[in-house]
Structure formats: C-alpha cells, structure tokens
C-alpha cells in the first residue's frame, strides 16, 4: 500500500496501540495533523504550550504501562519541549516524541523555525533519529518505541522533515519484533551473583532494603513485597519509588535522603547488608558519598543499567538485569537456601529494636495549629478523604516533600513527580496525562502558588477536554524551599523568594470555567477537600490553601552533609 509519510506516522502509532497523543501543531507538522484529522485510532489532546504536551505524555506513561507520545513542530515547538524531554530522561520514562523539521533541502540554511533538533536533544534522550527518507520512516518509528520501552527506559525522539511527511512509499504492517545489532538489553541477572546476594542476606544481622524507581518501572512491587516478607528486613523507598512498597506497612520506614525519615537514614547508614533495588544512590538520597561509605556494610546493587552501578558508591555484589527478573530469581534462590539452612527467626530482633527506637523519635510530627493552616495537615487530610487511593502529582519544592512524606502511597504508579530534574510546573500537565490514562480515577495535584504558575495556561486544556483534577495549592506566598535554604544557609536574606502580585486564583480558575475555593482556616480544610471530591467530582477544583508562611520541611540533611547529620527541626538550627 502506497502511503505518504504523515499517514505512515499515524499507522505506526496505531500499530503500537497508542490511544492518546499530546501535541501542538505548526508549519512543519501540518501534513501529520492532516493525517490525524482523517484517522480515528487515537485521540489528540491539544495543549497550550509544548512543554505541557511532553509532561502530559510523560505522566501518561508513569501512571500506566503504556508509552506516552508527544507531537510538536520544528524550532520553537521543539525547544519548548526540551524541558519536558529532559524531565522524562532523568526519571527513565518511556516516551516517544515526534518533532517536525524543515524540509531536508532547507536543513542547515537557517530556515524559518529551523533548529538542530537532534543536536539540541542528544544529551537528554535515550536516542534520537532524523528521518531523511520516507522509506526509513516506519522502521524508525518502530525502533523508537522499542528503544523507549526496553532496557532502562527513556524518551526517544524522531525528527521528521516536512518533505518526508508528504513523500510516499510502500507501507507494510509490522511483522515480528524489532531487532538491532547494536542494542540488545539484558533482562536476566547473573545467577552466581544473585546466589551471593542471597547468602549475604541469609547471614545478615542488620539487613536493609532500599528500593527506587526501577521497581516501579519494571512493575516489581509484588516481588519487592515478597522479598521484604521473606527476609524480614526494614524497607525504604526513594522519592521515585514511593508506592512500590505499601506506605502503611510495619516494615516500611519511610523515604530516605535529604528530607527522609530519621529511621530510614539511620538504617541506611547502620545496616550490615544493604540491598539496593532499582535505585541509584542519588545525592539527594545518600548525601555525601564519603560519609556514606565511612560506615562498613556490604552492598548488593540490582540495576538494569551497568553505568548506575559503582557510580557514586562502590558496591560488593553488582547484579545487572531487569529488577523484576532478578527479584524473581532471588526469591526462588532465597526460599531454596532458607529451606536447606533455616535462618534463626529471632536473629533480627535486636536490629528491629534499634530501628524502633529511631522510629520513636517521630520525626514527622509537626506543631498543630488552630489558626494557621499547616501544609502537612492538608496532605494528611487529602490522604484521609481519598483513602490513600488517589493519583497524586506534584510540582517541585516544599509541597512536593510534604506530599512525599505525608501521603502514604500504597500502590505503585500513583505518585507522579519530577524526581531527577526537579522541574517546577509539571504538576498540572502531569495530572492531565494521568487522567487520560486513568479516566475514572481521582487525581490530585499538590502544588504551590509559584509552581502552578509555570504551566497555568493548561487550565484551558483541562476545560476543553473536561479534565477534573483537584488542585491543592499550598499557598505560602514564598518560593518555600528557596526561602527555607535562605533561612538556614544564607542568614535569612530572602533574596527574590517572595511571591508578590499573585492573581486571585479563585477568579482565575472560574474564568476558565472551573471551580475555585479559598481556604483560610484549619477547620475548613477537610470539608473543602471533601466538597471537591464529592460535590464537584466532575469539575476541576482549585483549592487555594492560605498556609503557614514559614513552615519548613523536616528532617533535613543539608547539601554535602552525611546522611545521619540530620536537622530534625528548627531547634537544631
């Protein structure tokens, strides 16, 4: 069948089972948009800014098992998308971004809306392609999806010049899997290494399980849960791993790191065997690597990407493989080995006693107030009202940390945030992606008055597609995290961190056709959240919580400090 390039793009998306594409048209992609007009295999969501298209596609992927797709035009369309692409790259999110390009004959001539897309995006994609011939288009699209979702996932960009979208060639439907001689991701881990890890676990007196986003990405929550049960070890999950292990379980010690719990950080530092699963010893997780390495312990590191292993911390047993496959093998071998030499059940009693004394510090307690709305209180109430079952997206800053600390996620893929790049402005477009992938679910955005303004134009997209996220704005009139650092490290000189000239958010969202509520008293917090999720279930609701201006996020490990050098509250300053 003879098709033009634009039709081939649409066909290939249908082949991959894509049902939503987030995008924004422009000159270089007009043939593709013409082909979209004539098809009905997927719905196109028209955003208001290309950055939001990529974030939405990214969250679509994070909150489901599908590959998110974004479509943007050449030049500024693409440069606007770059922040979204870099965000997905840092968190290893499988995505395909299609960008228009000026016609092949004009490339390099500084044509209107031309930019070196492949060059600009190279450092923030897993791979990218410039398609110079329509005959290569279908195969390139297939490779893009294959690369995006296999191995360590990541965004893949396909740059398509306008003349390629109008040129025609014979199109044949996909047959079989994609094969590439230069790319063959591993799944299975080395059996000998896994055996070694099992022996270490069996002999451990103070074992600790440290799980990251890799567990979520490989859908290995059940395996992780079983490993925790079998070993009886305490479990911590990173910001990217929240929900991979249920937040309400007794073996769960909270999140580790800069704003992690006292017990998680103390246990990470003082365990004798640390099993790191799909986590990468990030600077926000282990603090100063020298300090972290100063306490002797054996480390097992399971990761699909060899370059993550021994990058910041030397490990004793590296296991390269897909987390799910490796954990399955590990569980099998563990059961086998434990049957041969049953481990002493009371062996970990002393360790748990220690962990529980750390827990008894109750590091997440905060001062309650009848007059000021405490931001932590809002998150706790959201958890109560939604039964802990909502999809929660966040932006970046204090509110993000409070969401991570106080919304005890029970299921994977429910917590959607920008962990690696830390991109302010993702919250609202993330909620759009989540909602398209999970149309019947409750979706909440926990944000701040500064972050929300970075993509606030998407309130319009939400109107158009009847999207109904509940936006909880923890409005403290400050760039809260910046203010916190300035208070602690910069002599309380609040340089440019005050958010002045705020809009009336209630009126603003009403002008887009949404519901706006302003909440100024603690007693009104829960009723307002309830109202949003019941009375206004089918509407987008913006809850503007006027919160305590100077609340800080505790505990805190200052940048460059050791993991156990924690500040537990303002009394430690």
């Amino acid at each position: 069948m003879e098709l033009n390039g634009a039709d081939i793009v649409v066909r290939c998306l249908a082949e991959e089972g894509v049902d939503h594409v987030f995008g924004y048209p422009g000159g270089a992609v007009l043939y593709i948009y013409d082909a979209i007009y004539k098809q009905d295999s997927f719905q196109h969501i028209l955003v208001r800014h290309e950055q939001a298209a990529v974030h939405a596609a990214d969250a679509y992927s994070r909150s489901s098992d599908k590959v998110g797709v974004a479509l943007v035009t050449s030049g500024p369309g693409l440069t606007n998308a770059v922040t979204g692409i870099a965000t997905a790259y840092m968190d290893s999110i499988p995505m395909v971004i299609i960008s228009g390009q000026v016609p092949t004959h004009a490339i390099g001539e500084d044509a209107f809306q031309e930019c070196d897309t492949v060059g600009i995006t190279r450092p923030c994609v897993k791979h990218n392609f410039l398609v110079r011939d329509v005959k290569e288009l279908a195969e390139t699209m297939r490779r893009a999806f294959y690369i995006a979702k296999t191995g360590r996932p990541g965004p893949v960009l396909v740059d398509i010049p306008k003349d390629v979208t109008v040129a025609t060639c014979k199109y044949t439907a996909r047959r079989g899997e994609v094969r590439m001689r230069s790319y063959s991701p591993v799944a299975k881990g080395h059996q000998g290494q896994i055996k070694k890890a099992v022996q270490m676990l069996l002999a451990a007196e103070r074992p600790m399980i440290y799980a990251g986003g890799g567990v979520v990405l490989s859908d290995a929550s059940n395996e992780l849960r079983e490993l925790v049960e079998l070993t009886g070890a305490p479990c911590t999950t990173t910001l990217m791993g929240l929900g991979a292990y249920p937040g309400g379980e007794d073996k769960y010690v909270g999140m580790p790191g800069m704003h992690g719990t006292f017990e998680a950080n103390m246990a990470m530092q003082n365990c004798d065997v640390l099993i790191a699963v799909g986590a990468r010893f990030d600077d926000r997780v282990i603090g100063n690597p020298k300090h972290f390495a100063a306490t002797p312990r054996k480390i097992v590191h399971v990761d699909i990407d060899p370059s993550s292993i021994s990058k910041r911390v030397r490990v004793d047993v590296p296991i390269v493989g897909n987390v799910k496959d490796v954990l399955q093998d590990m569980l099998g071998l563990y059961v086998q080995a434990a049957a041969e030499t049953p481990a002493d059940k009371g062996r970990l009693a002393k360790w748990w006693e220690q962990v529980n004394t750390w827990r008894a510090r109750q590091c997440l307690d905060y001062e309650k107030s009848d007059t000021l709305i405490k931001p932590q209180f809002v998150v706790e109430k959201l958890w109560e009202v939604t039964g802990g079952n909502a999809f929660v997206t966040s932006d970046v800053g204090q509110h993000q940390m409070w969401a991570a600390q106080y919304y005890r996620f029970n299921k994977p893929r429910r917590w959607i945030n920008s962990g690696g790049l830390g991109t302010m402005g993702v919250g609202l477009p993330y909620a759009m992606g989540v909602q398209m992938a999970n149309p019947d679910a409750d979706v909440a955005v926990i944000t701040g008055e500064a972050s929300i303004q970075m993509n606030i134009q998407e309130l319009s997209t939400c109107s158009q597609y009847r999207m109904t996220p509940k936006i909880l704005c923890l409005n403290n009139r400050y760039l809260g995290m910046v203010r916190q650092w300035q208070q602690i490290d910069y002599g309380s000189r609040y340089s440019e961190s005050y958010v002045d000239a705020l809009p009336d958010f209630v009126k603003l969202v009403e002008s887009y056709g949404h519901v706006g509520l302003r909440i100024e008293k603690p007693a009104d917090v829960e009723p307002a959240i309830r109202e949003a999720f019941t009375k206004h279930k089918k509407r987008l609701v913006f809850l503007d919580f006027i919160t305590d201006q100077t609340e800080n996020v505790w505990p805190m490990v200052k940048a460059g400090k050791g993991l156990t050098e924690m500040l537990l509250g303002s009394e430690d300053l």
Partner: protein
Amino acid sequence: MKHVISILLENEPGALSRVVGLFSARGYNIETLTVAPTEDPTLSRMTIVSVGSDEIIEQITKHLNRLIDVVKVVDLSEGPHIERELMLIKVRAVGKEREEIKRMADIFRGRIIDVTDKTYTIELTGDQGKIEAFIGALDRSAILETVRTGVSGIGRGERVLKL
C-alpha cells in the same frame, strides 16, 4: 592512567557526536580520537585515548556501551595490544641541518615525502613514545608544522573486535 579504548559503532550520521558529547557532558577526557569506516562500510572503528582513574575508565566504557549506536567497546589496555600513530611533520632543512635531518628521519625510520629548497616533509609512524622522541630530537625552531592522527589500536594475537 592512560587507556586505549576501541569502539565499533554504526556508521550513521551523528554517531561520532554522540560519543564526543558523552565525554564532554560527563567531564571525561579525550587525549586523541581517530575514526574511519571498517571493511564493512556500515560500521566505523574508533580509537580513543583517555586518561583517568580505573573508576572513571570503567564508567566511560559503561556509558559508551549504553549508546544505542555503539556495537562493541574494548579497553585495549587491559591486554597486550599495538598502538600506532602517523605524523606528518614539516621542518626547515637548510645548510648543514639538511643532511642532519635526513639522517634523523632514517634513524627513526621516517620517510621524506615532500621536498623544497628549504624544507622537508617527513612521514613517521609509531607509538606515541616514538613520535614524541622524534619531535624531541629535532631542534624546536626547525619545526614548521606538525600533524598527528592520534592513536589507532588493535589487540595482539588472535584477539579481534568485530561483530
């Protein structure tokens, strides 16, 4: 320590910049880099000489392997191998010096490949040590221009790097 890293990669537009971009993005060092297609025109062979601790070199090879266009990576320094570099050097050759330079080129088994009244252009191959020794043996002020290809490397014996 100095390492000689051999890379087999797809002969695709942009493949070279992916490799170079990796080094600059992560702050790794490139001392020399050579690249050309192999007997199979769809594949290129690259040799990179880099200096770094064992940990850094390990990260470099891991990151190179991660690039989609890279088919294979070998750190040649891990085993016996051969390194060669080609240098073209133009030197002033007048008066008494003219004969002296000819003799020097012979000693280093270089070849004079172009001649004028006042200059010789010499072609010299060898490992980096030999090339540097030759430059060192010449009078600095006599050197008009040098062009070096950078190191190409290959494993000794039956060790091969191919598909």
